[in-house]
């Protein structure tokens, strides 16, 4: 009985979200923000997840221990991206000469508008809420 109810709930969610997903597939701007959150969970193709993150703040992990947080404005199939209001975090490992211990130091930088070349991108995620 419990399982049945849960499936009912899922079907209801799907009915509610279907038009929204269809809209993003057709290349229209995504609908109201409230339904967008659940769209992340049901984006069908991998790129759909990035598509619904357009004009949202995203987290981008790059090669070389770098991370970016910024608003996503454009991307292409290579994952080249244009971000604005970007905060970059670089993790630098310092080795203490006396003790030989390694200490991780973070360097932060900000940038208004940034193009990121896709070959350095490891992952893109909507940031944790």
């Amino acid at each position: 009985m419990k399982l049945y109810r849960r499936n009912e709930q899922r079907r209801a969610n799907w009915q509610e979200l279907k038009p929204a997903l269809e809209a993003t597939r057709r290349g229209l701007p995504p609908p109201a923000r409230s339904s967008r959150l659940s769209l992340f969970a049901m984006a069908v193709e991998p790129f759909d997840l990035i598509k619904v993150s357009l004009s949202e703040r995203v987290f981008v992990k790059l090669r070389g221990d770098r991370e970016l947080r910024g608003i996503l404005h454009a991307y292409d199939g290579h994952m080249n991206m244009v971000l604005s209001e970007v905060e970059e975090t670089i993790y630098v490992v310092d080795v203490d000469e006396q003790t030989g211990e390694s200490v991780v130091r973070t360097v932060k930088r900000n940038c208004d508008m940034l193009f990121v070349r896709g070959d350095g991108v490891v992952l893109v995620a909507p940031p944790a809420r």
Partner: protein
Amino acid sequence: MLIFSVFKTLTDQEVTVELKNDLSIVGTLKSVDQFLNIKLDNIRVLDEDKHPHMIAVRNCFIRGSVVRYVQLPKAAVDTQLLEDATRRESSNAQKAAR
């Protein structure tokens, strides 16, 4: 293609190109091609003490594959236009894949 068009609209703007070897070059964007190779004029290297061999260089061609970032002038980018174009291009790409 989309990003290529973006760079074409930014010609004659001042940009900062950060390379994968951590060299940052400021200069006027003169031209760009499909590989995102970039031609810069009137260049200046950030942190010139570290890269003294670059002082004499006035203009350069940068191979697209060695670029990490390009810092763009915010005023020259229409974000709404970019997002619409991205949605259009990604749905075209998805259609082509099916």
